[in-house]
């Protein structure tokens, strides 16, 4: 029997975005088996409390550990989550108002990959949302790194979903990993390949052409590095511009979204700015990835070097610290870069029926 564990209390109005605190807390509750209460969820927002996409994450997390829930309603500013043991299985979740399926997937992945269970999760909603990683980023950047750590996670994108139409479909397949290995990402190494890609649904081709032309011009990338991928009309309207850097150390990807009323050139300039900024500091791990690798690192150990930490990352560090105190350290480097270090020799105690530690 597991002993009753002390309730962790989190402040959802702290730092950047209570949504992210919530998602990290859900993953961590599954991983550690510790219950938590999050208060003042998004208290300072114009629409405070839990949004529909947050609720789907809560329900998905609750499903895979038979959690006890309190306050899981739209607009609720307080949520109590008491996890049970993690289990695998098949499930399907649909996210309303074209909310991000990727954020739900990201909540489940670290928890399930460490639990030694097999799970297949079908998700529908948005697959390419602003304010969230895209499904492409997950398959091309995040999951390869997790696999490098020994995890067995696959993601299949069946249909693109953009805001506001939604309707995207993806399947997440997680199989038990033997053991998680530490991840080390200290240098970028040589950039071997540069790719630019435009996804375009129910919008004129010229939009993609203008984006690509401007981006390649700004980055001084060769013309053949660009590619336009038109999607079926019924998957739109939607437009995103991606820049991928395949380096020796890892693949990084950045993207911006076309918006009604925003010229294609500006979308391209924005992305070029992000790419140049990343290349300038020399650290291998980008701002977004730095945030997402914290949890896997806390579980399996390792270290990585990144540029200045975002507000999101700082909040995430605090949340992880609440569940796994002292697990992650940060070291300041030159050029305002940061090294995140997790010194653990043995794998984390896992909250799972199959885990020998519980």
């Amino acid at each position: 029997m597991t002993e009753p564990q002390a309730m962790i209390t989190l402040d959802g109005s702290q730092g950047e975005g209570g949504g992210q605190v919530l998602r990290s807390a859900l993953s961590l509750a599954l991983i550690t088996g510790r219950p938590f209460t999050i208060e003042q969820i998004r208290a300072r927002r114009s629409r405070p409390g839990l949004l529909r996409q947050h609720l789907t994450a809560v329900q998905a997390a609750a499903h895979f550990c038979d959690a006890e829930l309190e306050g899981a309603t739209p607009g609720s500013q307080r949520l109590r989550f008491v996890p049970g043991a993690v289990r695998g299985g098949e499930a399907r979740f649909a996210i309303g108002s074209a909310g991000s399926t990727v954020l739900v997937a990201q909540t489940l992945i670290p928890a399930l990959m460490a639990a030694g269970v097999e799970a297949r999760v079908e998700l529908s909603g948005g697959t390419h949302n602003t304010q969230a990683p895209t499904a492409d980023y997950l398959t091309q950047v995040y999951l390869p790194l997790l696999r490098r750590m020994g995890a067995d996670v696959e993601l299949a994108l069946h249909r693109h979903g953009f805001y506001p139409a939604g309707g995207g479909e993806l399947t997440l397949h997680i199989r038990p990993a033997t053991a998680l290995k530490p991840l080390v990402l200290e240098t970028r190494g040589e950039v071997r390949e540069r790719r630019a890609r435009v996804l375009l649904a129910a919008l004129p081709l010229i939009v993609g052409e203008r984006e690509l032309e401007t981006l390649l011009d700004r980055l001084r990338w060769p013309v053949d590095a660009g590619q336009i991928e038109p999607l079926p009309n019924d998957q739109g309207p939607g437009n995103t511009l991606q820049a991928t850097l395949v380096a020796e150390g890892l693949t990084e990807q950045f993207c911006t979204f076309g918006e009604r009323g925003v010229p294609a050139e500006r979308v391209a300039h924005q992305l070029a700015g992000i790419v140049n900024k990343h290349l300038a500091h020399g650290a291998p791990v980008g701002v977004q990835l730095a945030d997402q690798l914290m949890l896997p690192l806390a579980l399996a150990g390792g270290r990585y070097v990144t540029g200045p930490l975002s507000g999101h990352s700082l909040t995430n560090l605090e949340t992880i610290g609440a569940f796994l105190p002292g697990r992650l350290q940060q070291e300041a480097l030159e050029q305002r870069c940061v090294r995140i270090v997790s010194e653990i020799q043995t794998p984390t105690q896992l909250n799972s029926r199959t885990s020998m530690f519980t």
Partner: protein
Amino acid sequence: MKQRVVIGFLGTVLDEGRTAKRWERWRPTIALAQQEDWVVDRLELLYDPKHQRLLDRIERDLASISPETELVPRALPLADPWDFEQVYAALHGFVRGYSFDTEREEYLVHITTGTHVAQICLFLLTEARYFPARLLQSSPPQRGSKGVGGELRTIDLDLSRYDLLAQRFAEERAADLSLLKSGIATLNPAFNRLIDAIERVATRSRAPMLLLGPTGAGKSFLARQVYQLKRQRHQLNGPFVEVNCATLHGEGSMAALFGHTKGAYTGAVGERAGLLRQADGGLLFLDEIGDLGVDEQAMLLKAIEEKRFYPLGSDHEVESDFQLIAGTCRDLQRDVAEGRFREDLYARINLWTFPLPGLAERREDIAPNVSFELERQGRELGRMVRFNKQALVRYLAYAESGEAQWRGNFRELSASVTRLATLAEGGRITEVDVLEEIERLRTQWHAPVPSVGGVDLADLLGEEGLAGLDRFDRMQLAAVVAECRRHANLSAAGRALFDVSRIRRKSSNDADRLRKYLTKFGLDWERVKTDR
């Protein structure tokens, strides 16, 4: 938590859109399901079957963006969605057939889609609580705001839920109550409760009212105030017409009430509209309705129920729509039981019955009424009259004591104050004036009635009945009874008593007139003759 159910029309214009571009537009029905912090559990979508394709598209789009929402399409064929009658009937039919589960579900009526007529009908049906719902209004996203869902606003038509409005209504209501009481700050709790009830009925209902109470209790006065209140609320636009039924008799009574054509009866020289028609759009106060003749009762019933009647001698019905208030000091129920008053008419006017207590039962209201009367007198006399302090104390001490009988109720109090005000020198009522007035009242209430023609009225009316009569009435009644006892039948007595008007009026309604006079005191011929 209750399930959230939205009921609304499929918007044939606003919800339309075939290409992917529709997603860039604000579509109200879709927008309901695009709120990030608000979920519709069930959407009851009213649509005309000719818009089936649009419905299918909306259904697909909803499934995509709001998997939590169950869509229930409700076919509502409308030949002309701009036709008020048709739309109202269709929606009324829908709402009557719908089983609401307000314990488990909260309902919102979405009024942004559908024709303006549909919007009006939805509003009316919600306001009338056919839909136990709040209204839901959606609006497109503001310029520069994020997302396509726009704004949602709920409107609760239960106005008492809005503090600011509730306060206004409370003030308005206080003003209404004050109007009904003519600004007199009455203290008697029973009376205040009664006025409270009358205000609620008066502002909400057009049904007849029945005011019960002894003579002088203020029935006529109250009827007039109800009229003022209804007029203020624009519920009436016609005049206030007051009739004392005890003053109507014979053929003339029919004509006076219902009007007549030229030559309808002997003496009907011209045409006359009659009081009922005069009261069209206004308020008719029928005082002493118990004294109305049987024929008149039948006509009145028709006039109330159908709002139309035949004037005397006319083949053509005329219309008159009036609010009726009836007054009586009699026990109408007994009159019905004894066949003097039509049961159906009684049932019709007995919906809102308000018994007005006499002054003796409202002693705490004597003081406020005295100051009210004094002020009124001041206005009428053109000079203000005030009590000296001691004088007022003396007067109220007597007026509120058990010794003061106030048989004539407020009328009597009013007369008493009138006397004081008129006799006061220099606008001051002194203790001397008050003592004199008290003496007058004592005499009025306690002076023995001289025996007239050897008739003992106490035998006929009992001591209690007698106590409720003015000295004037007692003396007159005793003389009338004495005269009756000298005649063989009602007709003979009538002829003798109405000797002068009989000749002048060239009519033969003396018996009826006499019968009515006796009925006023609860007497009839048999009783007058036998109880010797």
